[in-house]
């Protein structure tokens, strides 16, 4: 039963199992274990980013294709929900239509880009996605009539997902373990369960025969073609799947934030964050996405304060305060990124699995 939920892909390491269980329990019970606006927000972000990073890993870790347009698909999904809720009223049907619409647009766009670039050389894909993604980001801020431009869109969720909606008054007195039972709680579980289902689906995909072929192509595309698999089709299919999953993750993110804008969903910085999460967690394994996204988001929220404190300590010395200031944390991530590509290409999860 448990094995089939995980599609037969067990963690295969005691430490990793403990870490994954801790993350799962932490996220599943986040509103009860760590009550507080900021911590629950962090937990929701982690859930969304796990799906986003896992879908990117399908492309990078399993397919061996580098894409710089993953935030574009993420953003399309988020904008889909935003437009649905803005124009179709605040209902669950609007969320559904918006999410599906965004997913469809993403998949078609991925198909076009994939057919164009992957049929010639896989390396074109990285460059073309970079160009297309930046064009879309510029377009999103220029078409302000549709997308709200730089300001983005703020929209209303269905009433059941808002803080004003209360439930369980008679049975539980409106509280459970001291946590208020309101729509915000429901919204969290909407995001969490959505993310869990998507993640398990992705796990299913990479452990299917299709996933095996992708791995074969990653290792030796010439040989895979010789055995009789059409490499281009598999690569394009992986691109489309990964784009759809990213769009759905974007839809969840939009539901959680109740806002979309170019900076939160389309920016190049976000793309770099995703790359870092994949590489640090471990390429070529879905659990790497879980570990990477959790570590990264927690670090982003709490480590920056620490760096600020460290910068305060070395106040007065020459360059050091600037190197350590909280704004420069991307510098250290970049260094970490390069080092981990060289020395830990399998990331944290690969290390844990091999170090038994």
């Amino acid at each position, binding site marked *: 039963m448990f094995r089939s939920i995980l599609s037969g892909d067990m963690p295969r390491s005691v430490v990793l199992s403990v870490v994954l269980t801790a993350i799962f329990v932490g996220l599943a019970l986040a509103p009860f274990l760590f009550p507080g606006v900021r911590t629950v927000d962090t937990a929701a972000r982690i859930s969304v980013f796990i799906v986003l990073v896992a879908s990117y890993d399908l492309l990078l870790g399993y397919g061996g294709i580098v894409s710089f347009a993953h935030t574009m698909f993420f953003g399309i999904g988020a904008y889909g929900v935003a437009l649905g809720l803005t124009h179709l009223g605040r209902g669950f049907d609007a969320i559904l239509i918006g999410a599906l619409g965004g997913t469809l647009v993403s998949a078609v766009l991925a198909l076009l880009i994939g057919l164009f670039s992957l049929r010639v050389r896989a390396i074109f894909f990285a460059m073309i996605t970079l160009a*297309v993604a930046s064009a879309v980001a510029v*377009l999103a801020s*220029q078409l302000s009539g549709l997308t709200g431009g730089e300001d983005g869109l703020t929209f209303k969720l269905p009433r059941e997902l808002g803080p004003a909606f209360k439930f369980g008054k008679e049975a539980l007195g409106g509280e459970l373990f001291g946590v208020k039972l309101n729509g915000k709680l429901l919204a969290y579980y909407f995001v969490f369960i959505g993310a869990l289902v998507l993640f398990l689906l992705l796990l299913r995909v990479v452990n299917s025969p299709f996933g095996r072929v992708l791995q074969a192509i990653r290792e030796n595309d010439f040989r895979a073609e010789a055995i009789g698999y059409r490499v281009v089709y598999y690569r394009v299919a992986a691109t489309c799947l990964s784009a759809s999953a990213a769009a759905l993750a974007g839809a969840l993110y939009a539901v959680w934030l109740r806002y979309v804008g170019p900076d939160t969903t389309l920016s190049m910085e976000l793309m770099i964050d995703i*790359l870092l999460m994949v590489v640090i967690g471990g390429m070529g394994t879905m659990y790497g996405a879980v570990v990477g996204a959790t570590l990264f988001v927690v670090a982003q929220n709490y480590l920056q304060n620490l760096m600020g404190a460290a910068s305060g300590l070395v106040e007065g010395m020459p360059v050091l305060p600037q190197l350590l200031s909280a704004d420069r944390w991307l510098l250290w*991530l970049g260094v970490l990124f390069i080092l981990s590509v060289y020395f830990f290409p399998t990331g944290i999860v690969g290390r844990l699995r091999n170090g038994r």
Partner: protein
Amino acid sequence: MTTAAPKHKPKMAELSLGQRLAPWMPVLLVPVLVALGAIAIPQTSSWLTLTVSGLAMGMMIFIMASGLTLVFGLMDVINFGHGAFVSIGAFVGVSVLLVLGQMSGAPSLGLNLIALLLAVIGAMAATGAVGWAFEKVIVMPVYGHHLKQILVTMGGLIVVEQLIVVLWGPEEIYITRPESLKGAITFAGAALEKYRLVAVVVGLIVFAAMRFVLRRTKIGLIVRAGVQNGEMVEALGYRLRRVFVGVFIAGSALAGLGGVMWGLYQEVITAHMGNDAMILIFIVVIIGGLGSVEGCFIGALLVGLLQNYVAYIEPKAALISNIALMVLILMWRPMGMIPVVKAK
């Protein structure tokens, strides 16, 4: 029943006109685009202004992109961190110009040019040195591994951008061009900015120099042979790795030169300007054919001209037009306009 083998009948036929013209087709695209621009923009004076600024922009993109395409052709190394050299070049060059404020502010052409020359030399020396370090530290361990190259050079780009912010501060720096390069001259009713004319001239000189080195010198011969078949060149006793390091340094220095020119063109520099320029650079090297300098030159001119024409007619479509150009050209020639034939 036996069927005799068909008789071997070799024929000597001259290549048809179409076949002989085919390799030159991309060259024709530039005048075609200029002519289309003249049709779409009725006022001759604005068309002339736009054409000159399109050519200037194309030349600058070419200077920045040429190093990238050569590095790829020679060693199959794809450098996503190339934009970092553009940024470094711009920051070093502009710093030199700001230090020499007296010279570049003086209303004398000679002093201005000396200041500009010093800025360019400073920028090229700095980017050449950084390029050498970049090659040693970041690129060398990942030869022959595209996926890792893309990831690692991207990481290098992030680090360099952040270091620029550490050294020069996070604010964008506004600069003014040297005194005698400000303003415009009027020609046939069209206002042509002096700086853009200078950019066109510099671009032509760089292109001519590159072609001269590649076609007429021994080192150029080795580089071109290396692009076609590296193993064979090594078998003949040349250390291709050394040649490659040289090409990498030269390409980085050119990116630095492009960075200074691009910074003075925009009159503002930011740490991520190199990354922004990379988008156009990638489009140019893809449509030109990865590894081909001539293709890169033609591609850069096409992108520069198209961007300026479209921005005049419909400003919002400018960036999309370049993507459309790339799509069209890849449909016509999937390997780029002048594909590089690899003997592999």
